């Protein structure tokens, strides 16, 4: 029997994360969706999808006294961050006027816009206008091998939806990049933590493969 906990802070869609894990895992794997610290602490693996705005998400963690538990999980068991669950691991996000994050990975979270205003984002390559949020299927270039990339093609498309993106400062913590007007971190990690900006639970067979890889990952790189 193995237990996978999906961190739930009350908003957004966690059902699909849960269903995707149940779809790929064998019958001995149990999935719980929870915000309970002791359940998270006893789980074998933890998935942190992150939801809504990053400030609200981190406040929700504080309100439930989960920060210490998170650091404990980060130092002890396979931990998958999805979307905000990746962004929250860096030092700082400029979302909502600026938020200090967990600081586990070296890098910052910035808005897609090029500084000429929130609603203008031009593609430097073509001069064309790019829409924000970055929404849809884009290619992920794997920058380093990792057990979670097992059986996933280089350049595979995954489903993204986000307005803020990560810029990593440490290439040893960078596992994948995507282009959208600029190059940003599509996957980052360290030790037993692996985080993705895209939504594997919504990325059809390639996404399910990544989740399958996570469910059998022992946390070593």
């Amino acid at each position, binding site marked *: 029997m193995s237990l996978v906990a999906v961190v739930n802070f009350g908003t957004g869609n966690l059902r699909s994360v849960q269903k995707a894990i149940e779809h790929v895992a064998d019958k001995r794997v149990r999935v719980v969706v929870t915000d309970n610290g002791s359940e998270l602490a006893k789980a074998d693996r933890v998935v942190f999808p992150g939801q809504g705005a990053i400030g609200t998400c981190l406040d929700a963690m504080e309100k439930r006294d989960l920060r210490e538990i998170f650091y404990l999980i980060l130092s002890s068991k396979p931990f998958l961050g999805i979307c905000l669950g990746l962004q929250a691991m860096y030092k700082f996000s400029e979302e909502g006027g600026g938020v200090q994050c967990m600081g586990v990975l070296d890098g910052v979270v910035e808005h897609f816009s090029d500084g000429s205003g929130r*609603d203008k984002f031009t593609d430097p390559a073509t001069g064309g206008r790019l*829409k924000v949020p970055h929404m*849809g299927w884009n290619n992920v270039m794997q920058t380093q091998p990792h057990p979670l990339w097992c059986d996933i093609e280089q350049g595979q498309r995954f*489903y993204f939806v986000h307005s803020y993106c990560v810029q990593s400062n440490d290439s040893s913590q960078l596992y994948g990049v995507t282009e959208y007007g600029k190059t940003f971190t599509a996957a980052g990690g360290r030790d037993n933590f692996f985080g993705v900006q895209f939504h594997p639970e919504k990325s059809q067979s390639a996404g399910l493969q990544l989740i399958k890889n996570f469910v059998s990952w022992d946390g070593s790189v």
Partner: protein
Amino acid sequence: MGLAKRVIPCLDIDAGRVVKGVKFVDIRDAGDPVEVASKYDQQGADEITFLDITASSEGRQTIYALVEEVASQVFIPMTVGGGVRELDDVHRLLHAGADKVAVNTAAVHNPEFVREASNHFGVQCIVVAIDAKRVSDKSPLAWEVFTHGGRQPTGIDAIEWGQRMVDCGAGEILLTSMDRDGTRDGFDLELTRTMSNSVPVPIIASGGVGNLSHLVEGIIEGGADAVLAASIFHFGEHTILEAKQVMLEAGIEVRL
């Protein structure tokens, strides 16, 4: 390489079945929603949209079970709209497994609803659906917002409305031309282009697709980020894969 333009089949749902009206009458039964959604997923649909057109309140409850069943089998993004009026409706749909919720009439009645919903659940899951009808054919072209499935005029300019909805936190706009819906004459490309140039968020073009080159036009001439169609896929005329091949030949980035 790069972000792909999306092809989105739309399933109109009435009391748990897929239906397709031609010009809002003659509703034909097009099958079981779970089977149809799975079929489109296998054909390479980039997302799936369900619009609940059920009139009765007891019939409306079927949508939650349906969304939950689809979400356990189909692992691509799912948008659900139709009759979404309160935060609790949004919450229930997201909880059942929807990724995005489309709001239409309720946004016109109370624009703050869009702000509340996007503050609470995130802009990424709030789609504002706009049903627009041409009110001026001469320059400057103009379109008016209609509600209640295209029956009720509002006096609101569609382009200004789109901009206001983005200010309220809409993460995407599903733009339907009421003049073209059901006609198979192609998208209202001027409407699509004008909206796309006026708002920073992605636009889904809808209404009027009768053949695959209409999808190409929607992207290239209309500037849409995604194209939505129903009847050309439902009755076996074309598969999603065929649609994407035609788009690819036209030089459009697609996910194959």
